């Protein structure tokens, strides 16, 4: 637990970077400090490992005032990742990673073993160990930066705009990597960023800073998007926060229609009858394993011979579009798949890629309404759904599906 007790940082000349900040950062969570440049978020972060000393107030780490600990000793117990990775250009990758263990007096062999372990953990090839930083791409350097910060297994990890110097695709994969690592390691992470999307994606808690060193709102990402404290926070979050908030509701809440999900062996007559029962203008055709293949319009089926099966029709299937995985994906993903689909419908699948049912705008609207209501009344201690993070629901089947559910639209849906 890191606690800021009315911490103020005032620079010579009177500029106040951080203004009487009170903040509790619980163990094992990711706390994101976000705000415009000059808002004091970086200053706050750097006060935790005493790169900057506060003018007033104190910072406690696990009940101890950090001002009482010798700075180098304190710092070796706190991992630190910075924007440009800040790797030592003259040291090989393994020696960079082994920096803190070596400072702590480990012998070289043990420190290097540890470095190899960490390279594996952050997804770096072992044969990069003997290379120098200039031989790596920006994204790889940043992975080394993270590995170096974790080398001595510190309980606390400070990340100062760690992903802002890499391109958006690499950034996104590094963020996913951080989420994965955090699920495994449960460090107390404090991450500074000016990117509110990043804050919402990786944070368990997000502290939004006003431009003058005070916190505007401290909340979970979900509540931040749902009920911004004031106009400043609302503007800072951006215009489509309503849609983005759907990422915090599980697609499992959708009431899926399964009456019109039909295997390829179904006859046209049966299909028409089924569609009529559930009042759907489209039917979803699946293969023998219940994997969705594409859509037929009921109006097109009317002109087909009634005894023929769906799999043998010469009629072309409308492309499947994106599917969403119930239990893993969010309402946002389900809505997105529905909006993108030509049929105005999207198929929900289980973790084996088997169709569970379809959703429509109507059904989405109902689920969103229920979720919003539950979100507002919700117990804040209840674990929230997070898109792309492992949830018990997604694990029910015990088996993993390497193929995933997000098949590209229209691929492999030709009738055989």
């Amino acid at each position: 637990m890191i606690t800021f007790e009315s911490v103020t940082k005032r620079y010579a000349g009177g500029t106040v970077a951080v203004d009487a900040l009170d903040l509790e950062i619980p163990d094992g969570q990711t706390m994101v400090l976000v705000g415009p440049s000059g808002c004091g978020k970086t200053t706050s972060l750097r006060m935790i490992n005493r790169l900057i000393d506060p003018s007033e107030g104190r910072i406690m780490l696990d009940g101890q005032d950090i001002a009482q600990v010798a700075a180098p000793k304190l710092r070796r117990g706190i991992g630190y990742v910075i924007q440009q990775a800040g790797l030592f250009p003259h040291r090989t990758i393994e020696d960079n990673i082994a920096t803190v263990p070596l400072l702590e007096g480990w012998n070289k062999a043990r420190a290097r073993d540890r470095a190899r372990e960490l390279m594996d953990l952050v997804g770096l090839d072992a044969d990069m160990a003997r290379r120098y930083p200039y031989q790596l791409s920006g994204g790889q350097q940043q992975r080394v930066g993270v590995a170096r910060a974790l080398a001595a297994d510190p309980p606390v990890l400070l990340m100062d705009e760690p992903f802002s110097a890499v391109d958006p695709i690499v950034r996104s994969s590094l963020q996913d990597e951080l989420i994965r690592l955090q699920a495994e390691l449960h460090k107390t992470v404090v991450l500074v960023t000016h990117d509110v999307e990043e804050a919402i994606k990786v944070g368990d808690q997000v502290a939004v800073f006003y431009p003058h060193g005070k916190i505007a709102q401290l909340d979970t990402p979900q509540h931040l998007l749902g009920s911004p404290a004031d106009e400043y926070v609302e503007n800072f979050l951006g215009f489509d926060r309503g849609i983005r908030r759907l990422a915090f509701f599980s697609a499992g809440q959708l009431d899926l229609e399964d009456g019109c999900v039909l295997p390829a062996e179904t006859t046209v007559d049966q299909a028409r009858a089924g569609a009529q029962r559930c009042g759907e203008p489209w039917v979803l055709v699946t293969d023998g394993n219940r994997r969705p293949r594409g859509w037929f319009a009921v109006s097109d089926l009317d002109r087909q011979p009634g005894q023929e099966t769906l799999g043998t029709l010469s009629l072309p299937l409308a492309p499947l579009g994106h599917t969403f995985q119930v239990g893993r994906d969010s309402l946002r993903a389900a809505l997105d798949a529905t909006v993108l689909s030509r049929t105005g419908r999207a198929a929900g699948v289980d973790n084996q890629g088997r169709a569970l049912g379809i959703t429509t705008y109507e059904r989405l609207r109902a689920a969103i309404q229920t979720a919003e209501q539950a979100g507002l009344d919700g117990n804040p201690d209840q674990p929230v759904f997070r898109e792309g993070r492992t949830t018990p629901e997604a694990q029910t089947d015990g088996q993993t599906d390497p193929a995933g559910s997000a098949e590209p639209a229209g691929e492999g849906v030709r009738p055989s």
Partner: protein
Amino acid sequence: MSWAWQNRDQVGHYLGQHLYLALLPILFGIVVAIPVGIMCVRWRWTWPPILSLTSIFYAMPSLALYLVLIDYTSFTDWTVIIPLTLFSLSVLIPNVVDGLRSVPAPVQQAAVAMGFGTLRRTVQVDLPLAVPVIIAGLRVATVSSISLVSVGQLIGIGGLGYFFTDGEQRDFTTEIYVGLVLIILLALVFDGLLVLARRWLTPWEAGRAPRGQRRRAVTVTLGGSSAGLTGGHHAHAGHAGGGGGHGGGGGHG
């Protein structure tokens, strides 16, 4: 050339003396310049006065200094070595300071945040990273020193400079040319050695690697699944490059 061969004992003697007079000041210079440079970076207020002092050393006519020193050190080697040491300091101290200041801010910050103490950071991070700039200074200082030793001949201690005055007195230009060529060769050889030393000490420098090696590094970065194989080749290329460099050094010597 045949004159030089016939007088090889004499040539060897003056060559040795020349080397001794030129290189000892460089050695003293670097031993003093590194701690002084560190001090100037650590305590910033010490830098302006020391910079002024180095400028004075640089501007001072060496001949005048020789003549002044004769009163104290008479006609010993010190009369040449001391002015040359001061001259080398005038080049080396600013270079050490520039080198230490060239360490990128994120690297310094990372070092502090990792928990390096001041001394360890200086020795393990700042100094190694300052090596390219320090060696650039050493090259200038060494070549200048090798050239300046001959001025000492005006007070009779000048290494290969002996051949200039002796050749002039005997009206024998061959001797002057032999001295001149040997001094130039010495300068080239030591400059080359320093270039090799830099390559050996800084295998980590981007853009210092041979071209092919650099391109391979990029392929590795982009290579994805083939990274393992390519990486192996890359390591070999590195060793081969190093070996070639040493071979070249032998040739020079």
